[in-house]
């Protein structure tokens, strides 16, 4: 189940090591991973172990490695984390806009009397009150209506 894919994952993890390390340990490390997988070890945990080892290899300063190399690696890592966070942040409003389609699914919206089982059962009367939501209490109930409405076939 996913064997070749997981083996590829181990190979990718090994490629994360510096070239010097791969020249010295690469073949043996791949063979060791194969033996451990054969013994029943989870390929995912082996890959994670190699990934952590690769990170240590890059980040721990060696006597022969200039500090600038380590700084560059840290900067690149920080930039990628920042870029990913930025992408995620920009994707959230877009997704929210695409799901809130009031024209197409009006009966799923807060205030619609068609599908509001949670509120109708509680006898709060919010189901027929429209979407005003001026008071904090009304706002809270609307969130519940949203959740209930999306569970229904629209």
């Amino acid at each position, binding site marked *: 189940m996913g064997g070749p894919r997981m083996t590829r994952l181990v190979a990718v993890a090994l490629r994360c090591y510096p070239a010097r390390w791969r020249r010295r*340990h690469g073949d*043996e490390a791949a*063979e*060791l991973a194969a033996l451990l997988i054969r013994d029943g070890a989870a390929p995912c945990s082996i890959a994670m*172990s190699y990934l952590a*080892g690769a990170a*240590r290899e890059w980040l721990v300063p060696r006597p022969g490695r200039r500090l600038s190399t380590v700084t560059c690696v840290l900067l690149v890592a920080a930039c990628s984390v920042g870029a990913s966070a930025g992408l995620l942040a920009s994707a959230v409003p877009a997704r929210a806009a695409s799901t809130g389609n009031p024209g197409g699914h009006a009966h799923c919206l807060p205030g619609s009397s068609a599908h509001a089982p949670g509120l109708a059962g509680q006898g709060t009367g919010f189901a027929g009150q429209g979407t005003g939501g001026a008071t904090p209490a009304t706002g809270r109930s609307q969130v519940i209506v949203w959740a209930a409405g999306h569970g229904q076939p629209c």
Partner: protein
Amino acid sequence: MSIRNDGAGQDVLRRVGEASVLILISLAGGPKHGYALIQDIKELAGVELGPGTLYGALDRLERLDLIESLPADDRRHPYRITAPGAEALRVHLDSLERVSAAGRLRLRLSGI
């Protein structure tokens, strides 16, 4: 990089981590390659070393001259403990023994 392990018995293994100590203990029984080390340590201490941890510790121990790599057998590099490595392990185990004895004594005296 060589280590200073003067006659005073400085414990150079205090800061190398458990994996390195376990590897040295395993190699004290004879030269081994990576897979044999993992198996032996699992049997000896019940600890499953990850391969990434293993190679990191092997590199560190080699840089400290506590172990040495033997000529490759096929693709596998066997490692052997060096004389300074054996001495460092002895000092570390003595230190652990002293701490262990002190801990046991305190537990006995406090009656916990």
